[in-house]
C-alpha cells in the first residue's frame, strides 16, 4: 500500500517536473548558409529566407550547409560546429511572454569573434553573416519558434 502511494506521488512529481521543463524550453532553428558568387544556385530549403537574402545581399548562390533544431533550456549553452574552425554557442538567457533572449557567440580558435545578445519574437529571424568560408561567406540564420 505504501508502495502504491509512493509510486503515485513519484508519478505526479515527475509529471510536473517534465512538463515544467518542457515548457521552459525554447525551440530554435539554426541554419548555416554558404553565400557566394560561384554559380546561381539557391537551395530549395532556403525558400522562406530567400527573399530576405536576395534583398540584403548581392550573392548569387545560397547553399544550406547545415540545419540544427535546438531546444534551449535557460542558461544552458548549446555549442555546435558552425563550419571548420568555428563554433557557435547559443544560450537562452531569458524568456518573456512573447520574446526569447538569446546570447550568441561565434568562437574561432578559442576567441569570441562575435558576442551578441538578441531578442527574438516567435518566427522572427536574425541573420549573422561575414565569416569566410570557401569562396564566399557564411550566414547563420537563427529563428526562435515557440
Amino acid at each position: 500500500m505504501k508502495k502504491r502511494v509512493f509510486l503515485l506521488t513519484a508519478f505526479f512529481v515527475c509529471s510536473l517536473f517534465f512538463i515544467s521543463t518542457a515548457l521552459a524550453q525554447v525551440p530554435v532553428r539554426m541554419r548555416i548558409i554558404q553565400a557566394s558568387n560561384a554559380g546561381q544556385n539557391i537551395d530549395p530549403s532556403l525558400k522562406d529566407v530567400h527573399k530576405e537574402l536576395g534583398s540584403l545581399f548581392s550573392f548569387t548562390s545560397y547553399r544550406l550547409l547545415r540545419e540544427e533544431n535546438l531546444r534551449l533550456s535557460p542558461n544552458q549553452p548549446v555549442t555546435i560546429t558552425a563550419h571548420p574552425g568555428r563554433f557557435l554557442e547559443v544560450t537562452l538567457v531569458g524568456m518573456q511572454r512573447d520574446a526569447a533572449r538569446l546570447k550568441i557567440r561565434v568562437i574561432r580558435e578559442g576567441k569570441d569573434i562575435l558576442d551578441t545578445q538578441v531578442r527574438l519574437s516567435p518566427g522572427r529571424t536574425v541573420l549573422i553573416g561575414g565569416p569566410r568560408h570557401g569562396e564566399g561567406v557564411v550566414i547563420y540564420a537563427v529563428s526562435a519558434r515557440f
Partner: protein
Amino acid sequence: MRNSCSSVSTVLEKYFDQEVTDEERFLVEGHLQDCPACRDALKSMEELRTLMKVPVEEAVQKEDFPWVWQKIEREIRLQKKRTWWQSLRSWLDVTPLFKRKIWIPAVATVVVLLLISTQIIFKKTPSYPDVSVVEYVESQSDNVMVYQLEEPKVTVIWLFEGPEEERTTT
C-alpha cells in the same frame, strides 16, 4: 455370562468399522460365536458395504476430473472483464485513510495541468511587436555592423572578418 444381543448391537457397528477397543472386540467376537442373529446382522452390514462400494468406485473411475477442471477454468475466464475505470479504481482502492492523501495530489496535479494547458491552448496574440532586436554586439577581433530593415523586417549582424592570411600573420 452371555452378553445380550441388545448390548452387543450397540458396539457391532463400531466393530464393523474397526473402531472398537480390544476389550469390546473380545466381547463382540465371543458373542458372535454363539449368536447367529448377530452374525447375520454383521453379514448384512458387509453386504450393504459391498453394494455401496462397488457403484461408488465405478462412478469415481468413470468421472473425468480433468474435464471438471477445464470447465472451472473456462468459467473463470468467462468472468466479465473489468473496465479500465474499474481497474484504476481498484488500484487506487487503498484504505480510507490513504484515499484522501492520494486524491489530493492527484486533483492538484490535474488542476495544474489544466491551467498550464489552457494557457498554451488559449495563448493570446503576442503583445510584443514582431521583432528581432539586437541588445548588444561586440567582437574581440573584427569590425561588426548591425542593420535592421523595416521591409522586410530583418535584422542582420555582419562581421567583417579579415582574410585568413592577415589573421595568421597578426
